[in-house]
């Protein structure tokens, strides 16, 4: 499979099989859904969040070749205008990611659903399920659907998608039959704050939450708390009231922004204190929402 060129996502191979652009497969995670999970990070995101913690997953490689000469292991080559990554030579020093001018990475594998399952199958016995993350997993909806079908055919593992929620309802409907739950990151309830943080409005995100809750597929709503954008109690209260009106049993989890791993100005932002996190949990709980918690 040749590398994917230009900033366009390629979703079928030459022989018509759906393929995915996979940045990374994590074999063990305790924080991406119920039980122990494998997490697949897909390359490419339609948001450009100010505090993005893995900005190298935002864009697809444009094959500018800047990284090739910088690789200390000579694991990167430029062949017929395409950057090619040799995973055997790579020692994961991530120098290429650091210097990439396009928020991307040359360390991306193009995989069929079957290839990806073969990566996970040997460790399936340790897992409750598989989580698709990113990037934005739903930028590659047909691949996710095919992969989850494979997972369900071959195992008892459950399936979960972590998404920013900016989806068309048709896309979600396509995923519903093969997906046990969705975890939606609502970056901010206030639409202006959402626009500032992500570059997009949250209108479709709120629609996604409502739709998933109605179909009993909403595992939880998560929000990264960033001082100055979404750390006010009033915003937490409004959001919780909104969720309450949909279903009082929706789980809402506040995560703490951490400057480590962020880029640009966000590196200088401070992590919210325990006190702020506790106050937000309390404010949200006061609305009657049953399951509100926060990360450590």
């Amino acid at each position, binding site marked *: 499979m040749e590398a994917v060129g230009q900033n366009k996502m390629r979703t079928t191979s030459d022989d018509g099989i759906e393929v995915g652009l996979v940045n990374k497969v994590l074999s063990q995670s305790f924080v991406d859904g119920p039980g122990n999970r494998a997490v697949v990070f897909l390359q490419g995101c339609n948001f450009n969040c100010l505090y993005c913690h893995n900005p190298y997953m935002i864009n697809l490689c444009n094959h500018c070749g800047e990284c090739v000469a910088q690789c200390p292991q000579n694991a990167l080559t430029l062949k017929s205008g395409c950057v090619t990554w040799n995973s055997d030579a790579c020692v994961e020093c991530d120098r290429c990611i650091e210097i990439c001018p396009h928020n991307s990475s040359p360390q991306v594998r193009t995989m069929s659903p079957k290839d990806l399952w073969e990566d996970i199958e040997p460790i399936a*016995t340790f897992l409750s399920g598989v989580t698709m993350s990113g990037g934005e997993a739903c930028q590659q909806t047909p691949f996710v659907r095919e992969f989850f079908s494979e997972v369900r055919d071959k195992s008892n593992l459950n399936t979960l998608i972590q998404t920013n929620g900016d989806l068309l309802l048709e896309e979600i409907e396509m995923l519903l039959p093969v997906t046990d739950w969705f975890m939606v990151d609502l970056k901010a309830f206030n639409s202006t704050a959402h626009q500032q943080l992500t570059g997009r409005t949250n209108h479709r995100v709120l629609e996604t939450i409502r739709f998933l809750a109605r179909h009993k597929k909403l595992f939880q709503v998560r929000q990264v708390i960033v001082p100055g954008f979404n750390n006010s109690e009033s915003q937490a209260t409004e959001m919780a009231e909104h969720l309450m009106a949909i279903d009082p049993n929706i789980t809402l989890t506040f995560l703490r922004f951490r400057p480590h791993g962020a880029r640009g100005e966000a590196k200088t932002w401070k992590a919210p204190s325990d006190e702020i996190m506790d106050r937000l949990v309390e404010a949200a709980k006061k609305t009657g929402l049953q399951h509100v918690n926060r990360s*450590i």
Partner: protein
Amino acid sequence: MTKHDTTIYSKFNPYEDFQQGLTSDKLESYRTSVLETLKSSGLILRQKRDNLALGAICTLPYPQVSDRARELIEDETFCLISEGAAPYHPRYVAPDYQKLLSQGSEFLELAPATDLYEATAHLLTAYYYLPSEPVFLGRIDALLEPFIDTVDEKTAAHVLRSFWLMADRLNPNAFSHANIGPEDTKIGRLLLDIDRELKTLTNLTLRYDPDITPDSFALQAVANTLEVTKPYFLNHPSMVEAWGEDYVTASCYNTMPLGGGIYTLVRYNFKVAMAHGDGSIDNYLDRVIPETVERFVEVVNSRIRFLVEETEWFESNFWVQEGLLYRDRFTAYAGVYGLAEAVNELLVNAGNSAARFGNNPTANELAERIVVRFGEELEKHPGAYCGGKDGKITYHAQVGISSDIDVSPATRIPSGEEPELYAHLAAEAPLHRAIDGGVSTVIEFDQTAKENPQAVLDIIQAAHGMGIRALSIGSSNSEFIRVSGWLIRRSDLERAKDEKALRHSSSYLGAGFFDTKPTHLHRIARKV
């Protein structure tokens, strides 16, 4: 080799003589040793008495063995692990406490227990009179569940709490071990609550069977182990397959028959054994192990015979007379350790120094061949009076003591060299399958595990499915540290260094352990 220099005798007292016992020229050395014990500010009375008793036993000659067997003891291929010259009581016992509760005891002048107060008092009394160190406290849930409704719920919790506290304080030893499960019981759940609250040192094992143990009970146990490093998760179905239903877990994680026990534990050092061959893999497997195991069995049997025939231990105590212990349910341990070093050195000799146990398929495979080979050889030789294990000495992975330097505990991958979790479990699982008398793997999780106990249970179930028999699970900031097979408190470690008296004898072993194995304290927390 017959030279008796001081290096060779480093693990023996300076006044000991294997063949003659105490001789007049060593009398002064013996007196000095006694006086040192009397003057030690770091020992409480009970510990001083234990030391004095052991010292006295070591004035005897050791039970007679062949010259070759004696050489293997002297060069520390075999280690008698501070049992002294000869055993005068079984090393471990696992009495049938159930019978004690239902029939009472003539010797202890106890009537059958009729309520929870009496049942717990009977048990505490029994522990006091145990004919060995109190390494087994019983299957607490099975013992006490029949009495739980003799008092109201609140009282039951109160009585159990007092019992558990007292069991710990009267037996200040992290080798004391209680069992629960696989069935879900009120007592089992209460005990987990209490154990989590009291943070005692007493060891606890959950006999886990996913077909019998409900998830909610197992998850409560996971939450506990992330806080207090216990209970152990024992692969109950695999133990039943090896021993039948009536087995127990005592001391560190030692398996033995209920109503029986272990006469003696002799250790076998895989690393030191290498000195008896030409250093090649084939020679080690086909010559060194068979030859030394035969002598090893001779040593174990000499000690069993001394206990059974010389001291006539089974003829003269109420535990046997009242049917709480049966001689035909006893066996002995062959406790192996230092596997990792043997594997790595054999591979260096074979020109493959890059292959290290835990991180290389060739090395892992060699580890399995060695462990399996030792087991096969052990099976070839009868163990004297070992009716508790079909006439055989029981195979055990021994966790080590503080004087082990540059030798890894049991059959474990060296601390600090463990590969990522799944590979770690996969490397040790075949060794667990081959050793049925007690073997464990220690794993640790970071803080995210506390928020997601199901994830830990997923891993436990997978590990058991692969053949792992016992898992010790901790969390990276737990107050307790699992030293090989037993628990110590972080704070006790600091106190031991200051020579303040500790109630817990096992903490001393731990303190020494860290001096020789500093990396153990810095076990890399698994990032999840």
